[in-house]
Structures are given as C-alpha cells and as structure tokens.
C-alpha cells in the first residue's frame, strides 16, 4: 500500500512552506541590501540631459555615503520630490547648507533678473543638468537633507555607456 493521500498532501505542504520561506528570506536580504548598501534605479526624463538620455537609463545608487554624510557638491542624487512624495527625481547636488545660490529665475529669457538664496541649515540645493527643462530647487526651494535617497555612482544600461558617473 503506497503513502496515503494525507501523507502526500503533508509532504507537498512542507515543500511549499520551505520554498516560500526561501523566497521570503531572499527578499528580506535584498531589501536590507537595498536600504543600507546599494540599490538599482531607472532614471528617465529631460531634466538631466546630456548626462542621462531621455529614453531612460539604469543606474546603481549608493546608500552608504548618504548615511555617512559623505555627499558633496557635484554628486548626482536621487531625491524624494517635495512636491509629490511618491515620486523620486534625479538631480545634481549644487549647494549645501550655508551656500549662497545665485540663479536665473527663467533661463530662457535673456537678461532676466537673478535671485540669490542662502541654503538653510539641514538643507541642500539640487538642480537638473538641463536647466531649461528641470523642476528643481529653483522652483521648489532647498530640499531637506533627509529627502535624499542615494548617490548615483555607476551607469549599468545602456551598455555603451557602462561605467562610473
């Protein structure tokens, strides 16, 4: 007499449990790595031309330098948008707290007036490389440091441009 139905179901259930525990473990490790070490992200849009193309690129984002406070002027950063908390945008960090930022209110108009702003404590100033098509700190002001989500350090896709940023 072979194994009963009950025993078959029992072993099947055990296998399913083991497999799903493996999946859960994997996702936990992945999530911890993504939060503390590094993350992959897809960036797209016109605001960072010519650094990033319109059609979208895949980059690696470093989370460690964020926690150690080692982000400096010139870094490309991922920022949670202060206008829409569900959106994460890519900009370049131009100024840190205490810097006086001078910028043209509308770069399309020749001879337009300039504004000067001091970056408050605990904030950073971010700007897109394409100043004509970018909503950034010139629009929504300096951004609190805690809204930064990581520093972009490596481009993975497209493969022709694989390398450090």
């Amino acid at each position, binding site marked *: 007499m072979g194994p009963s139905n009950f025993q078959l179901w029992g072993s099947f259930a055990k296998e399913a449990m083991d497999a799903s525990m493996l999946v859960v*473990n994997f996702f*936990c*490790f992945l*999530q*911890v790595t993504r*939060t503390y070490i590094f993350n992959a992200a897809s960036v797209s849009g016109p605001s960072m031309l010519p650094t990033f193309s319109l059609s979208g690129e895949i980059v690696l984002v470093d989370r460690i330098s964020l926690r150690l406070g080692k982000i400096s002027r010139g870094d490309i950063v991922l920022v*949670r*948008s*202060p*206008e*829409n*908390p*569900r959106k994460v945008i890519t900009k370049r960090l131009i100024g840190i707290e205490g810097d006086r930022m001078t910028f043209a209110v509308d770069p399309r108009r020749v001879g337009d007036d300039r504004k000067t702003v001091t970056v*408050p*404590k*605990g*904030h950073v100033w971010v700007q897109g490389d394409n100043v004509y098509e970018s909503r950034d700190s010139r629009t929504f002001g300096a*951004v*609190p*440091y*805690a*809204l930064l989500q990581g520093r972009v350090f490596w481009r993975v896709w497209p493969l022709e441009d694989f390398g450090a940023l």
Partner: protein
Amino acid sequence: MLSQKLRLQQWRSTAKNVADRALIVAKFLCFLHIADTYLCAPTLVHGPSMLPTLNMRGDVVLTERVSHRIGNVGVGDVVLVVSPENPRKMITKRVKAREGDRVSVFGDGIWGDVSRSFVVPKGHVWVQGDNPYQSRDSRIFGPVPYGLIKGRVFLRELGIHT
C-alpha cells in the same frame, strides 16, 4: 598524521556550526529590520514639546509605518518626522494641516513680527507640538515635505514610568 586530519575535520565542523548560527542571527536581524521599517516599531520619545500628551522624560510609543506610505496620515495624527533642520534627529509632532489648507501664524520664527496666513504647499504638511510654548515646529521651520514623515504614533506603552 591522523591527528592532523582529525583536527582539520574538527575545525571544519566548528566553522560550519558558527556559520549556520551566524546565518540564523542574520536572518533574524533582517526580519526585525523589515518589521521595524515597514510595519511597526517601538520608539522612545522625549522632550517637552508634546506635553501633556507625551511625557517629558520619555515615553515608549508604538509607531506604525504603514499609514504614511499609503498616504493615510491626516490632521490630528501624531507623527514621527525627520527634523528639516537636522537630518539626524527625529521629532514627534502633531499634524495640524495638510496641503491646500490655510494656516495662520502669529509673529515668531521665520515670519517676522506680523501675523500671516498662507496655504500649505502641495506635498507638504504643517506640524505643531501640543505644547506651543516649548516646541520648535512648523511655526519656526515652515511646512514639512510629506516625505520626511517616518511613522505614525498610535499606542503608548503603559507601565514604563518609574
């Protein structure tokens, strides 16, 4: 010769034991981190800015991390916010107004000496401590981007006061 081989085997099995245990600890810490970040976590809060709701010397509260991710934080909720003045500090305040609401401020802080009324911008909330005399909040540093909210306080654990 035999004893050398035996010792090597012993080392190998000890190392395997240690690795297994370390893996269990690592898995447990991962679970803890996930629960802490995405579900709910006990937090110690202290300071005078939320008197009389929260104790000055310290209260252990349970904060849930779900509502702010689904946009469920509303007026009247006590929330944990990363301070816009110091990104290493977490502060506890009550949400007084959401985006689009009109707020009036009287004197003090960055607004100068006049009373002003303005609208909370899109993507921001206005937070204030329950103790307005001893609280650095939106009256001083302005409306706070929603992305700085890290959790909502929903339970105070009793029996901590000695």
